[in-house]
């Protein structure tokens, strides 16, 4: 089952990766199981929750919604590749300062989605943040401090 494996090459968090993947392997599974980058989380099986969001060729993408094979030749960043050594990305820092995370499970996806929201709309309003995060579910925070975090990060990121 799953068909013949195929070779893909991609760049992930700045490193070149070559791997053999089955045609039915989801990108999220590939990232977690093959590359052992377990910061990308799986929270559902219907592409609703956004815990698996990553950056693929500059866009925030739910990695459970595409196949690993489709990422052939892509440039990918996961939550592990966002900080600059010990220096957190402004979005990560803002989540820390505003208590934008509790159990931490949705956090990687939230951070990845939020970075692109702000990069694509530097003067983002609260309403736009709430709308923009519709595809990321958090059960802990009531989103209150996540919205605050994104607002603060937007000012730091040059909005």
């Amino acid at each position, binding site marked *: *089952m*799953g068909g013949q494996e195929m070779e893909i090459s991609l760049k992930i968090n700045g490193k070149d990766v070559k791997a053999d993947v089955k045609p039915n392997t989801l990108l999220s599974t590939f990232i*977690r199981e093959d590359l052992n*980058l*377990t*910061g*990308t*989380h*799986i*929270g*559902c*099986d*219907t592409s*609703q*929750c956004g*815990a698996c969001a990553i950056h693929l060729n500059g866009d925030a993408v739910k990695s459970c919604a595409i196949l690993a094979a489709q990422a052939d030749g892509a440039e990918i960043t*996961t*939550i*592990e590749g*966002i*900080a600059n050594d010990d220096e*957190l990305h402004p979005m*990560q820092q803002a*989540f*820390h*300062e505003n*208590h934008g*995370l*509790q*159990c*931490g*499970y*949705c*956090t*990687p996806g939230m*951070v990845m989605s939020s970075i692109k929201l702000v990069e694509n709309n530097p003067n983002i309003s*609260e*309403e736009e*943040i*709430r*709308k923009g*995060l*519709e595809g*990321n*579910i*958090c*059960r*802990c*925070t*009531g*989103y*209150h*401090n*996540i*919205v605050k975090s994104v607002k603060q990060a937007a000012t730091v990121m040059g909005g």
Partner: protein
Amino acid sequence: MPDGGSTGIGVSVKRKEDYRFLVGEGNYTDDINRPNQTHTYMLRSSSAHAKFSIDTSKASKAKGVVKIFVGTDMEVGSIPCGWQVDSKDGTPMREPAHPPIAKDKVRYVGEIIAVIIAESLEDAKNAAELIDVNYNDIPVIIDMQDALDNSKGLVHDEIESNVCYDWELGDSEAVDKAISEAAHITSLDIRNNRLIPNAMETRSAIGDYEHATGQYTLYTTSQNPHVIRLLMGAFVLGLPEHKLRVIAPDVGGGFGSKIFHYAEEAIVTWASNKIRRPVKWTSDRSEAFISDAHGRDHVTSVKLALDKDGKFLALKVDTLANMGAYLSTFASSVPTYLYATLLAGTYTTPAIHCNVKSIFTNTVPVDAYRGAGRPEATYLIERIVDKAAREMGISQVEIRRKNFIPVDAFPYQTPVALQYDSGNYNATLDAALKKADYEGFAARKADSVKRGMLRGIGFSTYLEACGIAPSAVVGSLGARAGLFECAEVRVHPTGSVTVFTGSHSHGQGHETTFAQLVSEKLGISTDMVEISHGDTNNIPFGMGTYGSRSLAVGGEAIVKAMDKVIAKAKKIAAHVMEASADDIELNNGNFEIAGTDKSMSLADISLAAYVPHNYPHEELEPGLDEKAFYDPLNFTYPGGCHICEVEINPNTGEVKVEGMTAVDDVGKVINPMIVEGQIHGGLAQGIGQALLENAAYDSNGQLLSGSYMDYAMPRADNFVDFKVGNEVTLCTHNSLGVKGCGEVGAIGSPPAVINAVVDALSELGVEDISMPATSEKVWNAINQAKNKN
């Protein structure tokens, strides 16, 4: 210099645990892989009620399959319920057997019928397709009223009824008398909707048996690893504690759903011995919907008797509580001791009676979900108070003030067993009215009306009982465990500290809050403190985290252990400095001889304790490492006022939350930032219950709301900025004065939201709307009211 002040009690210290989560280095159960591990797929029943036969012969030969187990392969103990409730006639609750894998009969969609263990999850899933299951369907019991009629069928043949127990609390005669004489009676029928907890991390478990030592390790997504060790070890698998290690690493939210001992935990642990390889299982979300314990699901009739001035005379409550198909760990206690005991709320109602029938149905087991019994009690109280006010022409605020337990009445003995230690309900109401700008409501409503919209405001002045619980009290009520907590405070030779706590953090921020307790008490920065939890081999003992108990019970255990550390440290300091221990004072981390400039730091003392060259050996053991157990004297009683303001579009029925204000009294606040975060999260779950969420079954027992496509999880754009504040009365029976904040948001808010919706619709003559108040429901209510008028 010690610097306890800046990271001590009352400071919004940023969380110590954040970093690993923010950089993707959390360690959740599914992130763990053991060498030579196998993968498991649980084949689950697609029928809600059937006798079945199963043929795994073809599947056993499929690619990658290591072993397939069915129910008759796993002859172990029944999954136990942790709380025995007796019916009012004195008979014990009916407690049907609950095998981890169904043997010949299934009782809900989602029940495990076969365990497929393979080299990969894909192999296991593919093999499951080859399993032949033959279901002979039996009539399905979904509705609780149907369940009361034996002729419609029995969920369990071996017990003669679908009623688990028929239980009561309170003085039924006094209540009936008051009702027969009252100037006014208000009645209401209520459904407290079934919810699905939906922690974002799905459950996962890895069983790992080491043949050479006979040692079992279970990695699991649990809120209470020691409780799992006890329930699974002693009752299901017959494994002694010293051979069973349970590790609950980072856990991605629980909300109650990860308290319980689930079949999958026993299965992977047991199977890892059978196949002599680690066995891993991770639930996918669809599976979680039909296998995680659900919450709430009560149907209740309530009557409130009032005198002519609106003073409450009596409350009569009749409830049917859904247990699902089997008794989950805490299921029996939720609609009894965590529910009926709350029915006084914040009011002086002198007579209360509550009857609860808990019912087996062909649905997923129901158990504690954030609030557990207290949201159900609060909902009916705050809804009927609201309705009574409307009927009697008294304002929503006035009727509450008239009936509040006054500040000078504490300690206050309610007619339903509890004794409240402290509270000030007018204070939280006043603060909430101000925060919500109640005075400006009329103007905001006028503005809505101008735009063709309806606007309403709703209140909830709630109380809850948490910090569970005094072991002697819960023991007398049927709990099969004690509910104390344990902590060990280890001062290392160079003065840093590790705290081992039996509480478990799965988002609550214990690693920070508990470190602040140490910082405050021992005068060292939180950077010098590590909080260890979640591993039965590291932690002396623990009862875990639920019922908002971590700080009030677990925190107190840490304080007690620190008191022992300090007492010993003073003796060591006295010896080294040649003074009397009575003269040693601890000030900001320094152990000083009173009235002199001589002092030792904690680090000086701990070094002396671990390098005991100059040491009072005849009097003290070396080392500085103390353990304490703390059993609370009473429940704690947080309370407060939630005010919700909604705007409703009469053309679409859409309800928009325009304002959500919560002023809570959670006792002493250790970290205001974390407390506010807990309240935000609770509010979101409460608003979710009121407006969005509902677990719906069809009459065949199929879960209709079985994915995020169908179950309305609250999203960021369902909410506005919450306005949160606090007023403090201290808990009088613990040293910290803390009460608990984890559940108040979910307990207090649903009636505030629904009262606001009803307020908005009341001018049309709508008196009630059931949860969740979806657009469709509201639109229908508006149109029915219009047609009637």
